[in-house]
């Protein structure tokens, strides 16, 4: 970690390739929320927005009167098997919590990054957000794709485009600690 906060704006380009796992960034511009059901439908019916340079936010917000009330991240690992096609279509950033599997880590290499937002911080997130539109609203509030404009949302680079992964590093260490604990 360098200590400085990197400013990013969508659509994202090759600047994401220079980020390092552990860097703090602030993201502005449009993001698209998507959870399990939205991923499944995009796989089957196509992506309803321009995916080039786009950022996907793993989130099922609370929306009322066309306003984002609460919009923290959901567990990204549920989308481990559903994210490759998005990166193939030009998506540059996946945003969520808890990290993603080795398949996604490989897929992100030289393409994009995984950005982590603090789980549960839905009120903080919504104070950085303006709702701009919606796709697949029939999937329900949690599963629809909400088009959201971000204003400097504070994030951490969880997986970078070189394959560095802070979640994986932490769990490698945790497993070693557990083995040591088991032996005593």
């Amino acid at each position, binding site marked *: 970690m360098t200590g400085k906060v990197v400013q990013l704006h969508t659509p994202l380009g090759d600047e994401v390739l220079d980020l390092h796992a552990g860097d703090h960034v602030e993201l502005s511009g449009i993001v698209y929320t998507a959870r399990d059901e939205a991923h499944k439908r995009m796989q089957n019916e196509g992506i309803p927005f321009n995916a080039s340079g786009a950022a996907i936010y793993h989130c*099922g917000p609370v929306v009322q009167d066309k306003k984002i009330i*609460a919009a923290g991240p*959901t567990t990204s690992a549920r989308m481990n098997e559903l994210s490759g096609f998005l990166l193939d279509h030009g998506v540059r950033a996946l945003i969520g919590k808890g990290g993603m599997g080795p398949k996604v880590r490989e897929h992100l290499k030289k393409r994009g990054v995984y950005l982590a937002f603090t789980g*549960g911080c*839905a009120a903080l997130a919504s104070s950085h957000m303006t709702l701009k539109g919606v796709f697949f609203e029939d999937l329900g509030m949690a599963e629809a794709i909400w088009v959201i404009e971000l204003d400097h949302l*504070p994030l951490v680079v969880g997986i970078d485009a070189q394959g560095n992964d802070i979640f994986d590093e932490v769990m490698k260490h*945790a497993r070693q*600690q557990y083995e040591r604990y088991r032996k005593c």
Partner: protein
Amino acid sequence: MKTPDDSAIHTALADATFRAYREAVIRLPPDVLRVIQKAAAAETNPVARGEFANILKNVAEAERLGVPMCQDTGVPVVYLTIPPDVSLTRDLYDAVAEGIRKATREIPLRPNVVDPLTRHNTGDNTGDGMPAIHVKPGTMFTVTVLPKGAGAENSSRIAMLLPTHQYGIEGFIVETMLHAEGKPCPPVVLGIGIGGTFDGAAALAKEALLEPIDTMTSYEEKICKAVNMLGIGPMGQGGDTTVLAVKVKTASCHTASLPVAVNVQCWAHRHATMEVKR
């Protein structure tokens, strides 16, 4: 037939449930906030310090805006204490459900409750067996709401250990967090149920979460320390605090059994109790 008295109880209970849900999802209990602030001040890992800063900013922002601190406003777990002069009837369950529906519309809450097989969402956070209501006799008429999010609940586990393997209890709890990784939104609170029956241990584990978390017994502290040596940290991004507190509840069990349940709760350990004012 409903008497005017029954009707007053219904209205009062629905209203208290609504108020308890609103309080729970917007404001953390003081003991939970204190424990988070203490862990934040002691944290040495720079990424974890950033996570704690977001958590504390978020708690303040939720209170300022009067909105839920987390978008996963959970499924409704409700504990009722019934005084001797209130009869336990179906209507009490209906009144709680009415309070939950009002909370869903007005706070608002995210509609989370679905049929387990068709996955059809009822849209109002009620359904078969939801809210999950637990009733106890007492002196005061109170309702406690413990909204339970899925990330943490999905990491919970139960084991039927060998009765001679008491030493395995701590290991099972540590292993539960190792499997959970960052998914349950650590730093977590762990409710532990030891003894009783298969289902009873799980109920105890959840009830343990309602105990004040700013004090621990030496046994609870020992488990807490063992889990924290994993270094999973806030959100699984590394750090000194993986678990904020461990709370243990026990019940007598069969001489040939040792049930152990671990109910994992996220840092947003939301619960609130309201008196039902008649």
